């Protein structure tokens, strides 16, 4: 059984179709790339999966369960994490606090425990702090734990966003342009980290990325979208040579030059 299954999903904004009758299967453990020219509907698809926008048609199944009409926080609690194209960090909290916030749902102590700072709450807080620091270490952010994210370079903010999304311990993680704003070296390091963390923790990844070089190295399999539909699906090698994909990207370039 697929971990994530989309059946005929359509998303529209004010009558304009962003995603049209799209079907997609993602197997547990794979790293799936999602490419396509601007406006292909990639971010809309992520928003539909995470419950931020409601599809007008179709069903979304996660681990066999219908999540089509759930609230975003309920979807997260089932095990889907995400990062944001334009990072949505808590700007007035430190990097460490951002990641700690991601651990909210894995802490069990209640309001009484919190109010009285009972031993159970203290223990959980200490454990959460350790886990958050481990994640910061994994993404080479440890020395920035006390910084406010708004003042850091965009590439670093993207990494903080990823650390925070990993803190929810997702089974499926949706990464929206995870290496934008990064230098090549930085992007390579981040990709290597993402792969390693995903393998180590058994996380399935769905990655939206413009950077084809990165995508070729990261993804097991790539799905190409154009105008809200899937136009190709295959290994990175197949996708690189696919005529429909090349046409879609060339068309975009032609538009850009027109």
């Amino acid at each position, binding site marked *: 059984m697929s971990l994530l299954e989309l059946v005929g999903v359509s998303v529209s904004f004010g009558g304009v179709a962003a995603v049209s009758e799209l079907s997609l299967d993602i197997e547990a453990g794979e790293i799936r790339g999602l490419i396509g020219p601007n406006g292909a509907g990639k971010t809309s698809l992520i928003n539909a999966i995470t419950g931020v926008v409601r599809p007008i048609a179709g069903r979304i199944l996660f681990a066999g369960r219908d999540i089509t009409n759930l609230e975003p926080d309920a979807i997260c609690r089932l095990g889907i994490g995400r990062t944001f194209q334009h990072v949505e960090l*808590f*700007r007035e909290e430190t990097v460490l606090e951002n990641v700690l916030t991601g*651990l909210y749902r894995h802490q069990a102590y209640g309001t009484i425990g919190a109010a009285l700072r009972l031993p159970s709450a203290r223990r959980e807080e200490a454990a959460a702090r350790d886990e958050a620091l481990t994640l910061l270490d994994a993404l080479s952010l440890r020395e920035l734990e006390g910084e406010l994210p708004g003042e850091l370079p965009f590439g670093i903010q993207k990494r903080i966003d990823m650390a925070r999304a990993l803190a929810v311990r997702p089974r499926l993680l949706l990464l929206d342009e995870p290496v934008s704003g990064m230098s090549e070296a930085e992007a390579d390091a981040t990709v290597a980290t993402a792969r390693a963390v995903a393998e180590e923790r058994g996380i399935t990844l769905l990655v939206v990325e413009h950077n084809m070089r990165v995508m070729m190295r990261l993804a097991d399999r790539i799905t190409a979208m154009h105008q809200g539909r899937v136009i190709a699906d295959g290994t990175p090698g197949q996708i690189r040579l696919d005529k429909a994909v090349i046409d879609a990207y060339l068309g975009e370039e032609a538009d850009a030059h027109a």
Partner: protein
Amino acid sequence: MASRVDIAAIHRRLAFPAIPKHLALSAALIAVLTLVPLAAGSYHIYLIELALLNVIVAIGLNLLTGNCGQISLCHASFMAIGAYTTALLMTRAGLSYLVALPVGAAAAALLGAGLGFPARRLSGLYLALVTLGFLEIVQIAIEESPDLTGGIRGLSVPRPHILGFHLKSDASVYYLVLAITVAAVTVGANLQRSRFGRAFDAIRQSSFAAQSLGIPPGQIKLLAFSVAAGFAGLAGGLFTIVVGFIDPTEFGISASLRHITFIVVGGLGSVVGSILGAVALTALPELLRGAKEYSDLVYGAILLGTLLFMPRGLKGLWDTLAKLDWRRVKIWP
């Protein structure tokens, strides 16, 4: 480039009890407050009691507004509900103050949840209007049920007995208020640096991102509303024995604005700010003793001035001064 801060802030949230400096400061403050009845006259004791219960209101409101980002213009109503429930349970039902006080706070918390539940989808301006409407309804309900509440003539509350001990001296009431305030401040500070405090901050800054982390905004706002209302209700219950008399004029929109002024002037989202603001502004009428009629005017001007020129309040000022390198400050040119 990035500025290297605010290690102090992290420690405050993560390891507050382990920091001897804070602990020492708190202990010293409590020690001084314990000695007050030995030195001060009953008027000054009364003023400090008012300041303490204002601290309780401010701490609760700051969790709701400063941390969770929700406007409440009806905090005075929550205080009224606590005050009237406590007073009526004592005078009419003959319950002990020790029972009536927590029940009053719980009643306020419950009403806070009752208001927070339908209002959890609203924010900003809409929430301001709903809470303003709620304030008026509570105000009218108190005024127009004189048989129960004494209406506009108010309600006298005698000094209570606690476990057979009559709180008839000023000092005994004072120590009760002080003990409850210390407990309330501790609870407020604990909540703020717990996972719930982080969820409050998350909802304020980006409800969208908070939801992506599995934090349910509706539940969290509801929690913030009931905690804040509970704190206000507790302060209301204390108010009944500190002042000995309650009437609806104490719980109108100007009281709500006063509560907001505490946290704005003190510093939004900060426990220390709540304390600074509540204490400074309770002392203000005392400083303006020679010009009483100007006191509301000064209040309004301080509120507006802080919003315009010092949005981080006294706490922000404190932090700025603490970070200054004094050796490099030239006071004399």
